[in-house]
């Protein structure tokens, strides 16, 4: 999951980065609207956490620009946006949601609650109601970051889990290696050229060959479950 944190307060931004990383997200921080817009025009993000009080503009202006973006293109106008603000008046919340935000949290907030809200936003944006995924006999729990087959836990590394979750969330779409990398790594991280192949190889070994499929020359995908 790729998250853009638009927050000018260094303390909060770093705190969010640390917490969301622990949740397996790739986090980029922008301290101004200009920096945020540049990032949004460069890479796709799954969620944007937006502070309204930015030094160069009000955060609502960035939200308006995102929602008004052309389709297809970057940024994605349907990207879930969660507003983080110290303004707790009901009128501010209503205004924020009416501007096109998907959710609203008031500072200070609990990191666990924020992660849950982000997961809910992602579920809503993908049209799902359940918090967990099921691929054949395999159950994937994004909340507890666990994978099991027939009740037996399967031990995955954080990065392997992130690759699996990315493919499962996108199923049955095929994701290229670059697309998977874009969702798993932020701007600052340096990647090995075959890192994704290695993770997929390990996943197939632990989950079985049929879970992750390859479309030669295009990328990887998880097929949709056949209705029972």
């Amino acid at each position, binding site marked *: 999951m790729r998250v853009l944190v638009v927050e000018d*307060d260094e*303390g*909060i931004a*770093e*705190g*969010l980065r*640390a*917490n969301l990383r*622990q949740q397996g997200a790739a986090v980029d921080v922008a301290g101004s609207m200009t920096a945020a817009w540049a990032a949004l025009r460069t890479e796709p993000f799954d969620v944007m956490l937006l502070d309204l*009080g930015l*030094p160069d503009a009000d955060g609502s202006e960035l939200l308006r620009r995102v929602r008004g973006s052309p389709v297809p293109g970057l940024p994605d106008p349907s990207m879930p946006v969660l507003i*983080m603000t*110290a*303004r*707790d*008046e009901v009128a501010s919340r209503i205004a924020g949601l009416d501007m096109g935000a998907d959710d609203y949290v*008031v*500072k*200070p*907030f*609990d*990191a*666990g609650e924020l992660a849950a809200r982000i997961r809910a936003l992602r579920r809503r944006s993908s049209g799902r109601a359940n918090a967990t995924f099921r691929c054949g006999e395999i159950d994937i729990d994004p909340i507890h970051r666990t994978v099991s087959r027939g009740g037996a836990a399967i031990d995955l590394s954080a990065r392997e889990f992130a690759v699996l979750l990315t493919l499962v969330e996108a199923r049955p779409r095929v994701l290229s290696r670059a697309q998977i990398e874009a969702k798993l790594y932020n701007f600052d991280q340096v990647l090995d050229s075959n890192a994704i192949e290695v993770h997929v190889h390990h996943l197939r070994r632990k989950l079985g060959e049929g879970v992750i499929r390859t479309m030669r020359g295009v990328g990887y995908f998880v097929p949709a479950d056949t209705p029972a």
Partner: protein
Amino acid sequence: MRRRTLLGHLLAWVLGALAVVWVGFVAIGLTTGVHEADELTDGHLASTASLLLSQRTNEFVGARGTAPPLPDLKRHDYQQSMSVVVWDGSGHLLSRTGDAPEPPFDSSEGFATLELGSPPQAWRTFARWDSPAHGRRLMVLLSVDERDDLAWDIAGQVAEPGLWLLPVVAIALGLAIRRGLRPLGRLSSDVAALNIHAGEPLQVDHRHEEFRAVVESINALIVRYQAAMARERQLASELAHELRTPLASLALHAQSLQGTLSDGERQQALARIADDSLRAGQVLQHLLTLARASHAELTEAATSFDVVPMAARVLADYAQSSLDGRHELALLGASELVVTGHELLLELALRNLIENALGHAPPGSVVEVTVDRDEAWLQVTNVHDDDARIHRNGASVSRLGLGLGHRVVEKVAAIHGATFAEVPCGNALRCYRITFGRADGLASSP
């Protein structure tokens, strides 16, 4: 408790005044009636006496004794029962007519009120001699009771219309007052229905001149209330932002410490927690200052004090920290500026400005406190570097923290009837000035 209405109050006063006036009229009517009845009676007595004396003398001869009254002689309500007594010059009764008891003889002439009969009864009399030779003496008498009946009858005639008119006038006055007070009632209803929280002004259709000042004052108060509320909301919003930002950062870093972090990340999170704690403490200090300012404004009496020694004392407290930050502090300008207010609050405001200046000025720069007695201001000047990353005592001074600090100074300045503003003083300088107003009870030194 049910409150009295202005309508009832006015009605009571008007009807009370009306009753007093009416009673006055009755009293005057009665007095006039008695007086006029006296005059009429006396005139009547004199006329009768003149008429009888002009008759021939021998008509009285042989008529001695009391002639019995003829029945059914009364033909008019105001017809009076007069009695006539005639004596000769030596006091022998020649004639006596009417109900009056016989009066004693004497030689006097003119009007008199005599007590005659048993039991004694008052009679009004007029006596006269027929000629200077005193051949006959004639006296005409009229019962005083009969005269008083006439007086009361006249008074009654005067007062009676007023008695009938009083309730009619009262009802008419009541209706007129009720109708006349309708604009006041409408104003009262409008004021009662006023929603000052919505900022709606009082409608301007209260066109009576007497209401103009009231309506304008109420609308001015609404505007001031709205402005004050807006300031309070803005201040509350800023305070919330200022306090919640470090708290949010604190919570996030504390929670990140519960997860997996590298040693470097752990040290960084701990350092950030320390920074944020200090930052939250600074915000709380501002909050306490604002609370103290409000308390002082409400409860403490203003006193006169000299700003200059106070500024010198405050600057001296920052000697070591300025040295540590490689700043230079200076106090310039007047040697005295006496103002009336709360010295402790002004000291807190000055500390705020100096701390902000030290926090934002690059090392090696000068922070000056200047006092001007002629224009009555106190100013803090510093070389300001907006782009510099500011660190003082290990804690960063936030951009927003500066705004809250200035809010505190604004509040303190307002309490002193002063204004606080940044004034232009050169490209590389920032000057924050508190200008004391002379009109609002603030006494500057001569």
